[in-house]
């Protein structure tokens, strides 16, 4: 029986739905707690294996379950970035949000630009002075993003606010926090929509209604990011609909389905596909993120 790991610190509604969908397909879904066990820095030896679900102290505690695929639902992106890289080195396929999971917001923005996907005008600031300059160059309001995809953003309505926020960030943060992506505009939530894209297809939306053009835009963005699943945030701006952000792990319990497939069902389907068809490297078609030649055991913890 194929074993799919759902990599998340908590089993929320979304993870429960994914686990149920994997189970419905006749596979074993194992919740895997991030960061609870040290890992070797290189490929894991074959005798090492994922541990089963010990969350509830069930009789399964300590059971070793070699995983075929890991579904990245980890909200701690620092932990996910390192641990899932090690999982890949161990030959475990990881289904994730592509560049939105493994890259920075700048890498995401660059990939979308290269793909010709409409985005707001943006600049990267590397210091207090350059970030304030960037905001002024773009013209207020602007929105400030940290480098890690999925972290919150800050609308900056004027130069005084920008000075204060950026100075605070640079003074109190470390070197990486001084680097920010600044985008023109600050659309309010009533002008934005989340599109959940799985396997290259828009599955569900939340927020303002999205027409077929918007769904296609989100799908193109997901493909450009090499994402197995990703949430694309669209924003309505004076220059038209743009891709505002790409998010690696998002709640989808309130999302309205586009068709008959649920987000959880689509993710489960993608993971099962990955388990039966692992290939080297990322697909460039917006489908499964399949890394590793074959199933191999690796030490991660549950």
């Amino acid at each position, binding site marked *: 029986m194929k074993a799919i790991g759902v990599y998340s*610190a*908590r*089993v*929320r*509604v979304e*993870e*429960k739905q994914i686990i149920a969908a994997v189970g419905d397909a006749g596979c074993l879904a194992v919740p895997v707690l991030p960061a609870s066990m040290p890992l070797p820095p290189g490929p894991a030896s074959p005798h090492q294996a994922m541990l089963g679900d010990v*969350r509830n102290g069930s009789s399964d505690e300590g059971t070793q379950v070699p995983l075929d695929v890991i579904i990245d639902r980890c909200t701690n992106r620092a932990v996910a970035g390192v641990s899932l890289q090690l999982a890949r080195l161990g030959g475990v396929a990881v289904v994730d949000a592509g560049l939105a999971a493994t890259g920075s917001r700048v890498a995401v923005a660059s990939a979308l630009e290269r793909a010709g996907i409409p985005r707001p005008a943006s600049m990267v600031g590397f210091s207090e002075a350059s970030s304030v300059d960037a905001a002024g160059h773009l013209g207020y309001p602007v929105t*400030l993003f940290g480098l890690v995809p999925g972290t*919150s953003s*800050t609308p900056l309505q004027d130069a005084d606010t920008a000075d*204060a*926020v950026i100075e*605070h*960030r640079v003074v*109190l*943060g470390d070197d990486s*926090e001084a680097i920010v992506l600044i985008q023109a505009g600050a659309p309010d939530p009533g002008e934005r929509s989340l599109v959940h894209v799985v396997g290259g297809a828009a599955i569900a939306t939340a927020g303002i209604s999205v027409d077929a053009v918007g769904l296609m835009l989100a799908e193109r963005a997901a493909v450009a990011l090499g994402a197995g699943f990703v949430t694309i945030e669209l924003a309505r701006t004076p220059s038209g609909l743009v891709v505002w952000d790409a998010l690696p792990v998002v709640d989808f319990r309130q999302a309205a389905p586009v068709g008959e497939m649920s987000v959880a069902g689509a993710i489960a389907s993608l993971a099962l596909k990955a388990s039966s068809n692992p290939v080297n490297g990322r697909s460039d078609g917006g489908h499964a993120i399949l890394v590793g030649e074959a199933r191999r055991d690796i030490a991660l913890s549950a």
Partner: protein
Amino acid sequence: MAMLQCPECAAELDIDDGVEQGEIIPCPECGADLEVLGTNPINLGLAPEEGEDWGE
């Protein structure tokens, strides 16, 4: 006791009627920290996570 649903994992929770507003209750199923937002009726929400907001 009041029967409520965990806003994070939808688990059914038995909440003591004597809880106080602002009290933090861990969900026994998913481990999320839940804050009592109101007591009449009892209303639960995810407790805010502590983290640096850079004054934002």
